[in-house]
């Protein structure tokens, strides 16, 4: 019983950890989404670069995130780039997930109907304008459920950042358990908060799906 009381007294620490996890997730999800869209475009339009993008995606798909994080964390100083743990973590999460997002966009593109594209071309849209005004929204609509799942994966992978001492949710829970020996209470609360974050993402995806269904 006491453990929950101690935890309640230090709820500020846990909340700060939760905020850091949310911040990491939002920043890297947005950056990975943009980079993923960019790589998807590269792959679609430049046949010469396309195998490079393909290779990058395959490499990321065969690498555990923690190993990639370690590589980014230890390789950057060698190239003269000094990043703190937080930024290195964001960079690793962004690059890693951009590969997966690119793959998801390609999968959505494979089932994208040809008619709107043809119609857009007939109305004189082309290049980036065609992509931005005609393709982008429905493409994201098709990819939305899998994009949501990948965002949940980002939330889960962000817990690995505790290992390079980023002070996120798992770090906060671990600090409290190490100081007050209340492992059960602190980790259960952390786990429930992660669950909450994932449920928020799922609810967001469901809502946007409903809305885009109404628009049609």
């Amino acid at each position, binding site marked *: 019983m006491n453990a929950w009381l101690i935890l309640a007294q230090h709820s500020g620490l846990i909340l700060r950890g939760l905020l850091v996890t949310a911040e990491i997730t939002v920043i890297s999800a947005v950056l990975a989404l943009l980079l993923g869209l960019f790589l998807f475009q590269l792959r679609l339009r430049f046949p010469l670069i396309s195998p490079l993008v393909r290779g990058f995606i395959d490499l990321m798909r065969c*690498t555990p995130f*923690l190993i990639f994080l370690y590589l980014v964390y*230890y390789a950057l100083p060698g190239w003269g780039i000094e990043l703190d743990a937080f930024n290195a973590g964001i960079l690793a999460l962004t690059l890693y997930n951009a590969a997966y997002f690119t793959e998801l966009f390609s999968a959505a593109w494979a089932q994208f109907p040809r008619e709107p594209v043809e119609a857009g071309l007939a109305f004189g849209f082309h290049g980036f304008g065609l992509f931005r005004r005609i393709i982008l929204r429905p493409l994201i609509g098709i990819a939305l459920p899998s994009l949501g799942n990948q965002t949940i994966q980002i939330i*889960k992978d962000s*817990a690995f950042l505790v*290992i390079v001492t980023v002070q996120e949710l798992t770090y906060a829970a671990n600090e409290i358990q190490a100081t007050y020996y209340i*492992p059960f209470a602190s980790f259960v609360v952390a*786990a429930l908060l992660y669950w909450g974050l994932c449920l928020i993402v799922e609810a967001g995806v469901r809502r946007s799906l409903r809305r885009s269904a109404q628009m049609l």
Partner: protein
Amino acid sequence: MDWSDFSQLLAGFWVTIGVSLAAVCIGVPCGLGLALIRWRKIPGLDGMVATLVSFLRAIPSVTLILLVYFAFPGIGLSLNRMEAAIFVLAVGTMAFDCEIWRGALIAFPRDQLDAAIACGMPRGLRFRRIVLPQITRACLPALMNEISLVIKVSPAVAVIGLVDTTRAATRIGADTYEPLKAFLASFVLYAVLIAAILAAQRLVARRIGAPA
């Protein structure tokens, strides 16, 4: 990195493979059990399983392994590092396996079940002879993909000090002051293993062919 470092890394690699395989061997049948509970819509249990799966799919393996290793002794369940690692990876993959099995069960054609009932097959026989072989076939590529996912989260077990590939690389990095080389070597090991599994998965998917 010299030869003795590399053999340490290989020893860790076997731990990675062993722990992941054990987790999959436990997780896949347990996932099938959970999927069957949801398929039969057993009142009460159905909702509980749905909640459990949603929870397990959301919680990071790092957090879960810290919870299991540090907190379970407090409720009278002491697991050593190896057991805790297998438990956490198994429970994690079980939730995803449940969803894979459930998808196949939902897609299973109703008329085949009706035909089996009409032939007088009892429930157990119906499941064993009619349903199981077909959903196993349908699920095989997705389940193989799950194996690669288990290996990808398996470095999480390094946080409690189990010497898998990742932990071995950390140690070698600390000993030789060359962490980058150690992690590059472990990266190659993981990448080759996962690429092999994914190649096998594609082969199986092609053999099975497009779903009829």
